[in-house]
């Protein structure tokens, strides 16, 4: 088995190779929220077409090459040496678009007791989001 992590999700998927993350249609949706459709790799209203002539690199039978799609979308996909843990990140362009929209990106984090808090819980109040660390 391998583990696929994103900033908000964790999914166990069948064992994979070290240099590519091939997932079937069920696993790809569970692990990433994206699905393979005839028009391309899709999430919500967004579909990223497979580049013509490169079909075999991106999909074959019921399998999707998620790491290749991620790279094609200019998003970082990184794996442990054995390929048993993957992290699928957000790309710089998407981050910059969000920050320039001025809508504060939401997050959910625990307090000392493990209670979860989201930024959106504080809607209606002004929020000073200040960071610090023990180091």
């Amino acid at each position, binding site marked *: 088995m391998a*583990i696929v*992590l994103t*900033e908000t999700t964790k999914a166990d998927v069948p064992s994979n190779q070290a240099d590519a993350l091939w997932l079937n249609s069920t696993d790809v949706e569970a692990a990433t929220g994206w699905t393979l459709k005839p028009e391309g790799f899709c999430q919500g209203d967004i579909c990223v077409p497979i580049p013509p002539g490169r079909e075999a690199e991106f999909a074959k039978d019921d399998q999707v090459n998620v790491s290749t799609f991620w790279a094609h979308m*200019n*998003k*970082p*996909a*990184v*794996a*442990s*040496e054995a390929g048993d*843990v*993957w*992290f*699928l*990140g*957000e*790309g*710089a362009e998407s*981050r*910059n678009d*969000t*920050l*320039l929209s*001025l*809508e*504060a*990106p*939401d*997050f959910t*984090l*625990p*307090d*000392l007791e493990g209670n979860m*808090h989201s*930024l*959106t819980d*504080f*809607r*209606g*109040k*002004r*929020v*000073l*989001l*200040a*960071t*610090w*660390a*023990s*180091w």
Partner: protein
Amino acid sequence: MDADVEAARPWIENANPTYVTLIDRNHVLSSLYNMVNVPQAVWIDENGIVVRPTETAGSIDILRDFDFEAGAFSPEVLEKAGEAKNTYVGAVKDWAINGSDSRYVFDADAARAHVPAMTDQIALAHATFQLGQHLFREGRTDEADALFARCRELHPASWNIFRQTTEKEETGIAVGEEFWGKVMSLGDEQYYASVDMDGMPD
């Protein structure tokens, strides 16, 4: 931002804050808001709109003024640092009282102009860091250390990544030789932009 809850616990329990304090083991906030060091802050209004993007929160770049012989900062440097802190805290209080009428709130164009731009390399560093944190917690420290070294190369300006992953003193503070080497290697370079705020010392 700390590797685990227990590193943060004594600080939070001693401060006993009345506001919500969260533990960010994966530096999610660094990734979302393009932060590079602590303390940094973002001002978010009642509607979830950023009115002051990521900026250093009441500190200024005084580290290179540290007097190694005396083992301390000079009174002049400390006075300047105190002035920066007081100015920032005063601005936060002004915003708390006056909301969108506060003179410290940026309009949309000014707020956008102050957003620090993320690069592909920074985005890759954050993804690599989060993979490293996962492996670190699983006890795969050699693999994690190799990934953290890669993160420090990819995003050298991130002292959050550097200080989280470098050797710590017995006090738990990352102020060893490597840290001071990194500070001094900046030379005359400004580490991050001064806070754009009336009354803030350079």
